[in-house]
């Protein structure tokens, strides 16, 4: 197993001109199931029409530091069209293994 942080999504690739805006929280207790919207910070934007998965390890490390086993991270992923109009955001979480 290697150190990794990746986001797999469908539909892949994103539609022409669409980028994926990734916001994430700091690592927190695995028992937390809800975080306020203000806790999400921008970490990464994909290229237009990027294919899944998105490797966000470097961006996350730069923002919040190294991953710690047992901690939970929440992500909010928003597709953004070339005009800047946002689609519906999807929220998901993962416990670092």
């Amino acid at each position, binding site marked *: 197993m290697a150190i990794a942080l990746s986001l797999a999504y469908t539909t892949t690739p994103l539609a022409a001109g669409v980028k994926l805006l990734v916001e994430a929280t700091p690592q927190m207790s695995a028992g937390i199931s809800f975080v306020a919207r203000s806790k999400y910070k921008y970490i990464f934007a994909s290229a237009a029409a990027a294919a899944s998965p998105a490797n966000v390890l470097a961006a996350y490390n730069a923002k919040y530091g190294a991953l710690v086993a047992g901690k939970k991270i929440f992500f909010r992923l928003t597709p953004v069209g070339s*005009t800047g109009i946002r689609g519906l955001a999807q929220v998901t979480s993962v416990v670092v293994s």
Partner: protein
Amino acid sequence: MELRCIHGGIQRETAYNKGMKYLPGLMVGELSGSAGNTTASRNRNGAFLRTRVMPVNPNTALQSAVRANLQGNAQNWKALTDAQRAGWTALGLLIVRSDSLGRTYTLTGLQAYISINQTLFQLGVAQVSSAPAYTSPANLLTVAVTATSV
């Protein structure tokens, strides 16, 4: 208005400082935001009041850049033509958001102008003066995250 301590038991000063539930009624409806030292908020268990917490201000380079762009956009709005502002107003009526109480609302022209240009700034794309045609990008169908530390 019914007041009830969210931690149970008899209401005391210390309990109030942690948070106090209330049921919106005739006298007081749903609240949001802060007044004085009290903040009204809501979660899945209902509405409640809590002591206001002053936010931290890390003042990072990215935060400063975003704030400067926000200020620039607010100033640039005044320089737009009437036709451009009308275009943004029309676009704003098509963008639906929900507030912290779950109610939906549409944007004003200024809000739409700033929202779009802040997003473009975040993506490293040039700012726009004229409202784009409304085309919402396709939503993601599934998302799966993998995180390993060793």
